[in-house]
């Protein structure tokens, strides 16, 4: 069984919801990423979404754009991110790690080598924001061969036919983007999520995580009630941005603990 499946099965048994924080690899400094990942786990993260920085992050708002710029300035590369996961796995073999980013850095490395490296270092899932299922046949073959889960986004604009298509291809969990917009924008519409959920559940057996626009503990708690996991990105990256190398792990951990408590209560 995959780490993602074990994690979500255990949560289900305990009747708890997954907390899935996102950080950008290499932000604020390359040496901080692995300590941050361990900090996230200690503070209560169930799955880590690790952002692979890209020069042109079209689906991201200013907060994650700036994080990508900081990371690229530090010389962060996809190969470097994979090495970080290897280092993380020396101490943690339990917490699933999902790489999230854009397709081109993977294209440049080659899907075959990428998928192989993912398996070697212990990556569990891969989410490429700008590769919809229609354009991902090659990518899937390679990911599947190496037992890496392709993670998909679904949006408020996704129609039933596409939900069915994604249901067939997805592994691990499905990520429902709760608003029309880039990461970090707007505020979440709880009733809209509640309305969409039955349509998603009708076709999707996998756990459903919800993200985009979750900025505080109260919202995280409310969203968690409606789905299987909450993804928190920009709010955490913002915490990284306003911290320094000395206090970033402590500050981010504090924030994640608050989210954890809110979700569990």
């Amino acid at each position, binding site marked *: 069984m995959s780490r993602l499946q074990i994690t979500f099965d255990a949560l289900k048994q305990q009747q708890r919801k997954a907390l899935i924080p996102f950080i950008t690899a290499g932000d604020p400094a390359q040496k901080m990423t692995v300590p941050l990942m361990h900090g996230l786990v200690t503070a209560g993260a169930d799955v880590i979404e690790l952002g692979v920085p*890209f*020069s*042109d*992050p*079209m*689906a991201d*708002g*200013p907060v994650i*754009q700036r994080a990508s*710029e900081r990371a*690229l300035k530090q010389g962060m*590369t*996809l*190969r470097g991110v994979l090495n970080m996961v290897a280092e993380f796995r020396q101490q943690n073999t339990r917490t699933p790690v999902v790489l999230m980013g*854009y*397709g*081109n*850095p*993977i*294209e*440049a*490395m080659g899907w075959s080598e990428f998928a192989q490296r993912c398996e070697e270092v212990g990556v569990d899932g891969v989410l490429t*924001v*700008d*590769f*919809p299922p*229609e*354009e991902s046949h090659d990518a899937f073959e390679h990911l599947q061969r190496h037992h890496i889960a392709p993670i*998909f*986004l*679904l*949006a*408020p*604009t*996704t*129609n039933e036919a*596409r939900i069915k298509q994604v249901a067939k291809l997805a592994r691990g969990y499905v990520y429902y*983007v709760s608003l*029309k*917009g*880039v990461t970090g*924008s*707007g505020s979440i519409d709880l009733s809209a999520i509640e309305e969409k959920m039955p349509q998603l559940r009708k076709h999707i057996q996998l756990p459903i995580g919800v993200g985009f626009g979750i900025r505080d503990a109260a919202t995280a708690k409310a969203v968690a009630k409606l789905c299987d996991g909450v993804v928190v990105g920009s709010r955490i990256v913002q915490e990284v941005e306003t911290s320094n190398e000395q206090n970033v792990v402590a500050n981010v951990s504090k924030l994640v603990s608050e989210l954890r408590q809110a979700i569990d209560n």
Partner: protein
Amino acid sequence: MTYNFPDISGHFGQFGGSYMAETLVPAVEELTAQYLRFKDDAEFKAELAYELKHYVGRPSPIYHAKRLSEHLGGAQIYLKREDLNHTGAHKINSAMGQALLAKRMGKKRVIAETGAGMHGVATATVAARFGMECIVYMGAEDIVRQAPNVFRMKLLGATVVPVESGSKTLKDACNEAIRDWVTNVESTFYIFGTAAGPHPYPMMVRDFQCVIGNEAKVQMPEMIGRQPDAVIACVGGGSNAIGLFNPYIEIPEVQIIGVEAGGYGIASGKHAAPLTANAKVGVLHGNRVNLMQDENGQIIETHSISAGLDYPGVGPEHCLLKEIGRAQYVAINDDEAIAAFDALCRFEGIIPALESSHALAHAIKIAPTLAKEKVLLVNLSGRGDKDMNTVAKLKGITL
């Protein structure tokens, strides 16, 4: 071989496609469906033809640049005068088509990205013409170098949003326009400026721009009794070029030459010529194309004196035409483009856009090597009024 691209899902061989975030996938699918529904609709075609004739001023003439040709002492240079269109460039051909489609789709808000500002002006113009709200995204660097166009857009009622991220040029304006579209997908039509991006844009923008080549195919035999020996156009994203080239693909005797921005020279690495430099294939802005990138797949900053060519990618159909050998792609450096700009001003009394000056510069380069009977048709994609600041600065003059 029958040339029939793209396929039903927007692929030009290995190039093109539709690489979009999930929120936009239904929007591009809907756009494809609506475009396919209206493109052969008699009423749509009649309305577009009417607007192109009475508002844009088509057909654009072809002009024999006799003095310049005589001076060069070789092949005859003919110019397809897209600079004489309303708003001063070819961009309005496609902006008009897309606006008419937006109208039919009930969209009251249009957005656009722009580099040189010509597409922004064209979009602002059609938005004013049809009473639509218009937002134009433009890199902060381009806002400085194309200041006259920024003012024109504002006069036309558009909001111009400066983009400060990345290299502050066309690709970043594109990123920002996509972000707007994700956020406002239901109310908004994205009037895309070139023959690139996710399907259906490369096909749709090409179809609208093909008016250039279709006219030329009728005009050239009227003028000289035959088709030209070569058609030449500058390639940024590739819309003016594909509009001229595509109708000529089926005539194998006509050579097709695309001219990219060589910047400081291909060897310097500071250019915007992905095809000439054999850039690796990658994915950006919704399509798979030759793309200027580093070994880690990050998009690298490009350089060109002309904002409209300053883009790391190129439309998928050009990638295919290069791959199958039907078209040839070359680069012209900044200084060669400036020399061509000066030459057209002095010999013909026409001030060309710096983008178009690249195409012209290549014609000027090869004309002396060819016989006097040879005919080169250059797409003069736009006029140079917008470039006064850039050219003055280069000549050390403050306006």
